[in-house]
């Protein structure tokens, strides 16, 4: 007697593809992220109608339009507030927030901090190209000091931030770094990020061929190397050793700790509030406004 044939997966990567053609430049790193996302979603068999992809504004933020789930390309910098509304009000929906370094670290930086702090139930994928792509090449918070851009004719005077170090200090419970030129690695990391309960932050170095030239891709490719085996993902001190890197780009899971997610905590609150009693109705609340003596 032979065993029953394994059931075919319900979804293949192509099922997550819409028929809207990406506006991205040929060679843009974001294509890699999109492909990796399709594969990761298929690997986890995410249910399209119970998945929401939310973004801000930027080249990278166009991504939700290319993913066959509920999608919202919102306004610049506000991907995470919108994602918060979806994740908290609909715990049954898997929420993925995506965007660029300008969107998430410049105008959206504060939401990044507080979403991470709350351990929001969202997977946040930041496509870091160290530049403002859509607006045609201005300096970003991750642009290396000294670089010339459309708004740094004399070289960027400002130090850059390391998004992964920030995420850890903010309180993110899962932090990873990927390079979109490494499709396999990116797929793996997106899968892990999606599996994490709570706020998972994945910084994907995603080259902008148009405003950062081919050099960016080349140097990233040269610098990228996996984190050393045995890296202790539960220690933020260990993780910090692989932040603010210059000559190398350590990819992999930097940090991964267990802690109740915001939705876990809100469930506890609802339980506490009700203390076993049935849901309160408005008339019951109204009564509390009658003098009770």
């Amino acid at each position: 007697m032979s065993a029953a044939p394994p059931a075919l997966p319900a979804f293949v990567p192509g099922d997550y593809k819409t028929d809207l053609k990406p506006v991205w430049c040929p060679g843009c790193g974001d294509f890699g992220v999109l492909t990796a996302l399709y594969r990761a979603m298929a690997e986890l068999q995410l249910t399209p109608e119970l998945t929401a992809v939310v973004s801000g504004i930027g080249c990278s933020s166009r991504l939700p339009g290319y993913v066959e789930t509920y999608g919202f390309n919102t306004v610049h910098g506000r991907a995470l507030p919108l994602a918060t509304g979806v994740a908290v009000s609909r715990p049954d929906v898997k929420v993925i927030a995506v965007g660029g370094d300008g969107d998430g670290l410049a105008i959206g930086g504060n939401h990044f901090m507080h979403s991470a702090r709350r351990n929001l139930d969202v997977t946040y994928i930041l496509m870091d190209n160290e530049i403002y792509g859509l607006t045609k090449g201005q300096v970003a918070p991750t642009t290396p000091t000294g670089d010339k851009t459309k708004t740094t004719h004399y070289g960027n005077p400002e130090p850059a931030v390391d998004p992964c170090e920030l995420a850890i200090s903010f309180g993110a419970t899962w932090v990873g770094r990927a390079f979109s030129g490494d499709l396999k690695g990116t797929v793996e990391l997106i899968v892990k990020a999606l599996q994490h309960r709570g706020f998972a932050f994945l910084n994907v170095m995603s080259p902008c061929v148009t405003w950062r030239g081919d050099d960016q891709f080349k140097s990233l490719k040269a610098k990228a190397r996996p984190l050393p085996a045995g890296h202790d993902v539960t220690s933020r001190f260990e993780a910090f050793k692989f932040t603010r890197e210059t000559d190398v780009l350590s990819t992999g899971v930097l940090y991964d700790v267990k802690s109740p997610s915001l939705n876990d905590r809100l469930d506890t609150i609802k339980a506490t509030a009700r203390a076993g009693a049935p849901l309160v109705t408005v008339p019951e609340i109204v009564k509390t406004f009658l003098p009770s003596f």
Partner: protein
Amino acid sequence: MVGAGGDGIVTMGDILSQAGARDGLNVIKTEAYGPQIRGGESSCVVRLSPDAIYEQGDAVDVLVVFSWADFGRFKGEVQPAPNAVVLFDEADPVARTREDLGLGADAHWLAVPFSKLAGDAGAKGSKNVVGLGVLTALFGLREETIRRAVVKRFGRKKAAVGELALKAYEAGIVHGGALASMSSRGLTFTPGPSKLLLSGNEASALGALHAGCRFFAGYPITPSTEILQFAEEWLPKMGGTVVQTEDELAAIGAVVGASFAGVKSMTATSGPGLSLMTEMLGLAAMAEVPCVVVDVQRGGPSTGLPTKSEQSDLWQAVFAGHGDAPRVVIAASDVEDCFHATVDAFNIAEEFQVPVIVLTDQSVGQRRETLDPTRLVHAVIDRAVPTGDELVDYKRYRDTPEGHSPMSVPGMKDGIYQTNGLEHDELGRPASMHLVHEKMNAKRYRKLKPIRDKYQRARRFGPAKADLGIVCWGSSKGAVKEALLMAEERGEKVAAFIPEMIFPFPVKALEEFLASVKQVLVIEISYAAQFTKYLRTFTTLPENTIIFKRSGGKNLTISEVDDQIRKFLSPDRKKGVA
């Protein structure tokens, strides 16, 4: 009642107003504080009446002062009537005369040993309870009810404390009994069924819960914070959630996100917060996501007068936002209205998929009013999700005759769509062609017609034809209504028009009103005359229209309205002299 921090003015007002509500009286209560964050002077005005009342009222008939020094700090805010009964602590180091207060001959000027009586009763801190006793004796309040209230308030933790408080209360009654009889001025009423006693902010929050709001995101800001606090306390018990976000940008963002996810959502704020929400409200208009924002107006611009009322967020609510972004604006005019306006807001937002802003202000938001529980009923409308055929190659933004199109929510397999704040086609796909833009603008604005038709909400008071017609909005209603009654008694024909829908405006109703009066008077609390200028965008006010506008920081008083009415209807003016 006016006193220093620690005099228990607020408690005194609470007991008085709760007792009134308990006995079925109509009550309106307003508190005020000095600039100190805490421990400063405070004042509390309580108006009690067996008859309907619409406004806090101007001058008080009875004034209790525990500290003349602090009374001075509320100059212009707490004013005794010329014939008022004034009770003050004989032990007050500062001395005042009836002349200082501009009292008339028929006024009563009574020094009361508040502190002494409290001390004798063994409850030094209870000047306020002694005061309640005196008031009970003088004005025939129901002793039994107030006793209950006193016990409840002071006996909660320690019964002994309650006992002492009652002693102080009785001492007050005894002392009051010995004073000149005020029976003539007393309250005569037969207790009726208890009434609710709640603030406008609480009513707004109740309205939201009633309408089905199950997600609230907000950021604290005076004078709207009570709405957030109310939601945070009650929503979890109803299975809903509340997030206090990092700022207002995030609050309105989360609200739009939750609504996109299919959950009725709202936020509440005041001017500065509403300004910060400007961009996101444009996204809600563009992506056609329902959302409700309650704006409890305060004095502006900028940080302005955070604890005082004004009607100067009108332009922000109606016009703010880059691009042509349709929205709906509703105004609440009293505590009960806060409930209904909020339910209407959700109904409109959900049915037509537009952002809706409810304008209230500090004066209605934070004052407490009695309300008959049976008044809090209001039909609820839910969002139209696509079904059957509509889901066959579903178009999120199908260009329908009425403008709005069924909106699917996560979980609906065939309702999947991707949207954005860019101009987009019926499928929600980015499109920057002029023709698409024109067509989709038309679609979004088309909604305003059914909304206007369905919600021609405006109140009209006074005779069908009048010599003077007052047009005002929001919290001005109370003072205007009371002034109308006074005018009526004088036999003057004065009418008033007060819209609930601000945008889209009930233009037909207004024009009928304008046609029904000889002289138009617009009243508003905005230095820039925001309401008047807004009216002009869609109607032509008569040449001779009179504008009475001023800055906020002080609520519109009945006498201000009455003065305006007299000015234009006084006999000599009728003779055309003035």
